[in-house]
């Protein structure tokens, strides 16, 4: 279980994450929604050690995430796909994928993982030798997620996978995330501004505003709460 307790992160004078507490059950998907600047990305970046927390705690099972340097987080089964189709444009598609499993060394299962990832995103398989800079936006996002999956994570932290993508591509990627989670028992924390898409595949949801949790509950309940929609989700 992912257990976050009173987690607080400051960017200089700005409190980006303000005493946030929530749990994520193993195998479930929790959507973290809210407007731009609500602290969603900062929350994930704190969990993976890219930014330092000011107080509070975050545990994945027995592992104290806040004590780990970023490079070690993935070794404890936690993979973070940061915002903005985070592929390395100078590397080929295949190199981006291989990068995700480098830390696993000569583990013979790496090839198994790779074929699983390519089954999930067949478009990447057709473009293995191409430079990642030649990919479309949707393909880049698939590659970023694929690289994270190459680590064979137990917990996947996804930051705005829908950002800047066409609706049909968003649907496709969310569908893949959903089926994969159900098939593998992967735990997912999905940060999204696109609340409709995120709530459709999440079990639980929390709504962030100015770093604080303003609502939380079943994804269905959050999705049907009119006042919440108007106040924080803007639709």
């Amino acid at each position, binding site marked *: 279980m992912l257990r976050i307790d009173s987690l607080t992160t400051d960017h200089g004078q700005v409190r980006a994450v303000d005493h946030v507490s929530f749990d994520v059950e193993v195998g479930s998907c929790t959507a973290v929604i809210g407007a731009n600047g609500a602290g969603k990305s900062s929350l994930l970046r704190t969990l*993976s050690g*890219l930014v330092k927390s000011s107080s509070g705690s975050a545990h994945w099972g027995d592992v104290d995430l806040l004590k780990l*340097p*970023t*490079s*070690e*987080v*993935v*070794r404890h089964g936690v*993979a*973070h*796909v*940061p915002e903005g189709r*985070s*592929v*390395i*444009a*100078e*590397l080929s598609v295949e*190199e981006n994928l*291989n*990068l*995700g499993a*480098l*830390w696993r*060394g000569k583990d013979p299962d790496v090839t198994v993982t790779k074929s699983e990832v390519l089954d999930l995103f067949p478009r990447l398989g057709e473009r293995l030798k191409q430079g990642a800079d030649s990919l479309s936006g949707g393909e880049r996002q698939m590659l970023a997620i694929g*690289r*994270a999956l190459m*680590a064979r994570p137990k917990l996947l932290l996804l930051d705005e996978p829908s950002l800047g993508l066409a609706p049909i591509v968003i649907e496709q990627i969310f569908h893949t995330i959903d089926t994969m989670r159900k098939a593998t028992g992967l735990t997912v924390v999905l940060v999204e501004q696109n609340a409709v898409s995120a709530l459709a595949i999440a079990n639980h949801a929390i709504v962030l505003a100015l770093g604080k949790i303003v609502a939380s509950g079943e994804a269905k309940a959050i999705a049907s709460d009119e006042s919440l929609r108007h106040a924080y989700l803007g639709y």
Partner: protein
Amino acid sequence: MSTLLSTLITGLSLGAIYSLMAIALILVWRSTRVVNFAQAGQAVLSTYIGLEIHRMTGSYWLAIVLSIIFGGVLGGLIDLALVRPLLRRAGSGPEAAVAPVIATLGLLAVLQGVVGMFWGGELIKFPSAFSTAGLSIGGSKIPFSAFDLFTVGASLAVMLAFSFIFQRTGLGLSMRAAAFSPEVAQLAGVRTGRVRTIGWSFAGAAGGLAGVLITPTTFLAPNSLDLLLVFGFTAAVVGGLESMIGGALGGLALGFGLALVLQYAGSSYTFMTAFVVLLAVLLLRPQGLIGKRGGRRV
């Protein structure tokens, strides 16, 4: 043999050495975003160590191998002991960009001071395993010695080894990933600090080899490799500072160019020419003659 051809042949071995120095500077630049001025000091200290080994054992091969190893170890130590703490403390303000560069300048002075203390300032002739006299082909002498051939071969071997490591191994992939996107690399599990130290180490080894290769044709003194640093940096900038192949080609181009200048204008113009080339590239084509325009987003 035509003068032009023989001039170009002369440029080949110099160019190979400039390429090595350029690659050393590029390795550090890519991993740390620092222009390592201390590279000249590291190379000169490595070369003196080689000289000392040669004096003690009489073996040129042991000297050259230990120079390279010493250069590698020294480069790694500099990253661990100087660059790493500096980057940790400097944070992300403007001082973070300036502090390491100033530190490498200071380190250059320290290294040259150390060399001066132990070996004095006099010019020393460094031995070479092969004759530095021109080979003769079909009765006519060409300005290319057995040692030049060794220089080109050794440089080429190092470049091929580096290119194999970078393109074909996991270590190389993690080095490239860490250079292009440290954040993504770390999230993928790359220990970027360790990878950077290895980069400094490779750079130090390449610099050490460059020092050993250039000194038989010049002289060894505490600051005798400063010019090599300038030429190496010019070659790196011509090659676009980001790519190993760019640096290698930049080094060869500069070697040919300076050989032509030396032949047709005289030795007093070579240094100035390198600076003019450096300035011209920085002003007109800062991405390098070989680098892609806008190929890299910063």
